[in-house]
């Protein structure tokens, strides 16, 4: 389905990003695996992709830094000759109630989760415009729509990602580039394993499908959005949250 396409997935060494990278590769794409911290895990994802007979390229970059982002894009372009798909997935949390939230925790989360989407989209827009084709997927979050106590920084960033998605969709539509967002609910990843049992059971009460999602649930929707089957969709936010937002 995605044969000979080239995809960049940020934050692809673990969690949802890893699953997206593997799922796109399963569908035929060659994948650039971006990571910032854990090279071993990134190389492991690359190994699994190569086992499928696809190409994988591992690139370390802090996606909140414009120089490193430019290097990421230019390295990917010089290796593969093109980039068809960009999945802005990298994200962090620094949770606290607003009165206790440190300015640096605000800045760090906004930079990693929101500014990164701006930097990567900006850097990729020129080559995608030239080729008259592109698929940009931004990973938002259910809390970007609903709000969530203790996550002012994360919620502001994820909400910002939705606004950015809609604006980029309008700016780039005439050039064959679609831009959509996926808003996961509570997904079983490192980001959610640390939640207490009490918090988890309260969460489940809010989820009509009464279970946490899996990274695969999210990756399957991303796979759909980057395929030709979704070529008439742009500026949308698809919720993958067991029915939390309706």
């Amino acid at each position, binding site marked *: 389905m995605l044969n000979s396409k080239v995809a960049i997935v940020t934050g692809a060494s673990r969690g949802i990003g890893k699953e997206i990278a593997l799922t796109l590769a399963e569908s035929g794409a060659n994948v650039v695996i971006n990571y910032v911290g854990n090279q071993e895990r990134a190389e492991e994802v690359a190994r699994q992709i190569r086992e499928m007979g696809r190409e994988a390229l591992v690139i370390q970059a802090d996606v909140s830094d414009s120089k490193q982002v430019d290097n990421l894009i230019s390295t990917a372009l010089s290796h593969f000759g093109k980039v068809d798909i960009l999945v802005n997935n990298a994200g962090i949390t620094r949770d606290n109630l607003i009165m206790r939230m440190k300015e640096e925790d605000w800045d760090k989360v906004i930079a990693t989760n929101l500014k990164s989407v701006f930097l990567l989209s900006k850097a990729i827009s020129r080559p995608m*415009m*030239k080729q008259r084709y592109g698929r940009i997927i931004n990973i938002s979050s259910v809390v970007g729509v609903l709000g969530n106590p203790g996550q002012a920084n994360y919620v502001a960033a994820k909400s910002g990602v939705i606004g950015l998605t809609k604006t980029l969709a309008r700016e780039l539509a005439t*050039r064959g580039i679609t831009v959509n967002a996926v808003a996961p609910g509570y997904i079983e990843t490192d980001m959610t394993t640390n939640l207490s049992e009490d918090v988890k059971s309260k969460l489940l009460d809010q989820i009509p499908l009464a279970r946490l999602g899996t990274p695969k649930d999210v990756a399957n929707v991303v796979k759909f959005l980057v395929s030709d089957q979704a070529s008439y969709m742009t500026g949308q936010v698809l919720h993958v949250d067991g029915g939390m937002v309706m």
Partner: protein
Amino acid sequence: MADIFERVKKIIVDRLDVEEEKITMEASFKDDLGADSLDIVELVMELEDEFDMEIDDEDAEKISTVGDAVEYIKSHQ
């Protein structure tokens, strides 16, 4: 100069799908040639490729007529 103008003209004809005689040094990309802001960004990208040069975003914003583009290329080659 004439050569630069001819090369620029060819790019504009291809990109904006306008008649050659409309393209004069005085013609404004937006008002006379029907380019929108994205078209102008793309024209600048193509001019960069054609003349193997980099045009700063700040300079690119000042290019509003065909003559501006030709003058810029001439003085930066």
